[in-house]
């Protein structure tokens, strides 16, 4: 018996991220997008007791599911919070060390986990494409104990040199680099999640290290989609496929309008004995 499953690259990224969540911890997410969906999915299926703060000052909301359309502009996003505060207040809570994990999306990331959400192109004044800016990512990636980054596995995203460093990873990778830049000690990037891989960071060199692979992907597949060569963990874990339960919750409850989970379709076939074969995947879509 074999089973065929079809999902988007973004669904795989969100499901993998949701499974990384640690129960009973506090999270900081941007107000919308994949990081919020990952936290909502984790709360729905795996870690119901995690809580999160949002940049607008909302603390520990209970978003009604199915989520309302255009959640960022809907009162549902802050429904039944324990407190409605403001941006400075939740940033102070992160500065005090209350927030365990920041979850963020990145346009480009380098081998030390520094990332870009400002622009791509040859020069600041002449961007090939300008993006919204760091938003809250700079403070979240600086002040939370650990940062989880979400991005697609593409060479133009895993770059040797960022077009612009919006937010900090381990900076130049040297010992104490973050502290010398004025950031709190013992903080930094923890995982980078893509549709085909999960990375962590080597404790000594602070370089990005491949630690998990999607069951249909090889190390070469992943490295081919990176400008720099990551370290490779001695033992690679095999990532789960998105389950029917996860996809159901994601599509019907967490992102029922499908705004965020859209992406490149991937079809795999799970054969008897657990081998997973890639049947089809679309070419990478344009930047988005």
């Amino acid at each position, binding site marked *: 018996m074999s089973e065929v499953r079809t999902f988007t690259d973004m669904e795989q990224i969100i499901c993998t991220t949701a499974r990384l969540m640690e129960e009973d911890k506090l999270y900081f997410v941007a107000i919308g997008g994949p990081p919020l969906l990952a936290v909502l999915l984790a709360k729905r299926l795996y870690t119901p007791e995690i809580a999160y703060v949002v940049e607008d000052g909302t603390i520990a909301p209970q978003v009604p599911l199915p989520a309302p359309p*255009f959640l960022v502009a809907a009162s549902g996003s802050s429904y039944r919070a324990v407190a409605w505060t403001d941006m400075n207040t939740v940033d102070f809570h992160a500065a005090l060390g209350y927030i365990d994990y920041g979850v963020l999306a990145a346009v480009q990331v380098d081998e030390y986990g520094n990332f870009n959400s400002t622009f791509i192109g040859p020069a600041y004044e002449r961007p090939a494409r300008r993006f919204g800016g760091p938003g*809250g990512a700079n403070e979240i990636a600086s002040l939370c104990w650990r940062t989880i980054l979400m991005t697609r596995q593409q060479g133009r995203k895993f770059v040797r040199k960022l077009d612009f460093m919006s937010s900090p990873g381990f900076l130049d990778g040297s010992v104490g680099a973050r502290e010398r*830049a004025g950031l709190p000690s013992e903080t930094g990037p923890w995982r980078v999640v893509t549709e085909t891989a999960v990375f962590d960071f080597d404790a000594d060199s602070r370089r990005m290290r491949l630690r998990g692979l999607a069951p249909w992907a090889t190390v070469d597949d992943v490295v081919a989609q990176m400008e720099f060569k990551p370290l490779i963990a001695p033992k690679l874990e095999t990532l789960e496929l998105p389950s029917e339960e996860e996809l159901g919750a994601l599509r019907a409850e967490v992102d029922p309008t499908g705004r965020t989970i859209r992406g490149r379709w991937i079809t795999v076939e799970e054969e008897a004995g657990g081998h997973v074969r890639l049947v089809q995947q679309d070419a990478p879509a344009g930047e988005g």
Partner: protein
Amino acid sequence: MLAAGAGVFKPPDPDGFRRHVRDHKERRLVSKLMSEREAVERFVEDGDYVSYDCNLWNRGPAALMREIIRQRKRDLWIAAKFTAHDATLLVAAGCVSRIDVGWMEVGRVIQEAQVAGRVQLFEWSNGALAYRHLAGALGVPFLPLRYLGGTGTFHGSGAKLIEDPFTGQAVCLVPALNPDVALVHVNQCDEFGNARVFGAGIAPVETAMASRKVILSAEEIVAGDEIRRHPQQTRIPYYAVDAVVHAPFGGYPGSVPGLYRADVQHLMEFAAAQVQGTIEAYLDKWVFSVSSNQEMLEQRVGQAKLDELRAQETIREGYYE
């Protein structure tokens, strides 16, 4: 000093701010109710630094922004702390030449304006901008924080990295921001400017208190007596406020939580106008061809749509209950 960003910033001037307060702020309880036209004519000048709370998706001062566009204000400098397409709208209308960026929706309008040199961007973050407003609201020239350092954002900002004289560790300093004008859309307000803001917000109090001139638009004007019965709910006191504009649906097309939902169709119309290069027609329809927010609501939105947006907002708990 260990490092300094190269970005231009509005220089802090705490004594100048105090003198402005001494000489221009009304201490008496007097009515400041006026039309949005009068408020913007009197309190927004070309070249001003304008800061607003929230955005065009959520409890933003949309009616006041449209009035600024209608009056063709020029050369404004804005703080895009957690901005939706507000900056795009103001840039498309030719009102804005400088933007301090935290986060903003960016499409072809801002990108083309930047490349053509019509608008300059300066890099901060949402938090750094909210915090700069806090410094401005505290009356101090700067505040320390523990982020920005080491990044391109730092280098594009006006922040400085110094050795902290107390711990000896590196710490980042950001200059206080005292905007010329604050625009804040509030749920309730009395005629004097005592204001209530319900729900989470970005920095309504810091934005108002840091700014020399403060324009509030309010969904509802309540009696001064009502304010005094629930003083705990007052977030902004009257003496900080220069103008109070009664603006029901003043956040349209965004939502005001507890009152009405965002008009998603309108937001899509704007998104399409940007992509298709027809923002001039959009501005003509929604701003220039009507004389006020009220007229726009009556002639362009219509009562049926307004009723629908109110009906869609099913959550009142925490705001009005």
